């Protein structure tokens, strides 16, 4: 597949993920729903796994995490979103690490049990480890500093809250496996690029224009 097509793929999938984190995430939080686990299970895991099914290359999730994390971090009017930005980037890295052991052909995952298991392990792994990384890095880069006792104190809560992400991942995975038959490289460039740029531009436009409203300006 062309390198340019992959980079644009990273941009569009990363933008969709960032859009979900910046627009849908706060709505879930306002509704008092467990936004972190839902965002990880549905959007983070869903979009990263979908991109692997579509493009069949390693490294895309890491790039998507950087794009989505940047959207969250540099959300111009949304205030400091440090924790979310770090968590998103960490999730991209963790997905790559976990799926580095998953063969590209995915033929070994023909059984429903294996697909569900892969979804559970990946979604729980990226949620829990992403949460831990955030709890370590956020205090380090803020004025308060990192305290190991705080991390130990909230570890049971992190492990518990990941359960929902694991269940969502387990439900999502078999559905996402249907996407592996889609061949992105067969989409004509005249269609692929305008659609990809259009979706990315829409996501960034909505996030930027929505930010003053979300910040209460």
């Amino acid at each position, binding site marked *: 597949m062309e390198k340019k097509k992959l980079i644009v793929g990273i941009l569009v999938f990363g933008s969709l993920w960032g859009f979900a984190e910046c627009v849908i995430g706060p709505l879930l939080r306002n509704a008092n729903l467990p936004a972190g686990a839902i965002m990880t299970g549905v959007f983070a895991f869903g979009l990263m796994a979908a991109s692997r099914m579509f493009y069949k290359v390693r490294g895309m999730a890491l790039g998507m995490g950087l794009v989505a994390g940047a959207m969250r971090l540099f959300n111009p009017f949304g205030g*400091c*979103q*440090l*924790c979310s930005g770090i968590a998103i980037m960490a999730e991209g890295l963790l997905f790559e690490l976990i799926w580095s*052991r*998953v*063969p590209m052909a995915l033929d*070994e*995952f023909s059984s429903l*049990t*294996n697909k*569900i*298991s*892969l979804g*559970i*392990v990946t979604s*729980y*792994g990226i949620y829990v480890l992403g949460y831990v990384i*955030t*709890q370590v890095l*956020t*205090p380090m880069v*803020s*004025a*308060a*500093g990192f*305290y190991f*006792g*705080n991390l130990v*104190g*909230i570890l*049971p*809560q992190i*492990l*518990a809250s*990941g*359960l929902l992400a*694991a*269940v969502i991942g*387990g439900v999502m995975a078999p559905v996402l496996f249907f996407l592996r038959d889609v061949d992105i490289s067969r989409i004509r460039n005249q269609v692929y690029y305008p659609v990809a740029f259009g979706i990315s531009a829409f996501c960034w436009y909505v996030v930027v224009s929505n930010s003053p409203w979300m910040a*209460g300006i």
Partner: protein
Amino acid sequence: MRNIRALPILAIIVLMVGVGSSIYVNSQKNSSTSITINNEEYCVSQFSEMVEEKSIEADAGFPLDQLINKIGVASPETHEYTIIGSDGYQKTVTWENMQAGIITKGRESVFPDLPKAYRIKEIVEIKVEE
């Protein structure tokens, strides 16, 4: 994946860890509506008699540094403070952070100089660390 047969077992372990942790967290949940500060219990309603409310952006509450001073913690600037929520979520902050922070009537901490991770809900304890 080399050990694909182990994947379902790993998934079961993951689910068991999640369920076990959920049971543990719920059993440890503190339903108290009072706040323990430096080993003494207070109700939020008492705070209004102790210090004046102040606002930080959209939030109003009681200045944490003034509460600590009122309670009589000696040399408050030499201590750190661990704020603990009813679910066990906790964060340790410095005296400088306390000087900028407030606790709302809804028992939530607000620190304008710190990330949102420091907004601790349903606070049940503020520990004065040595």
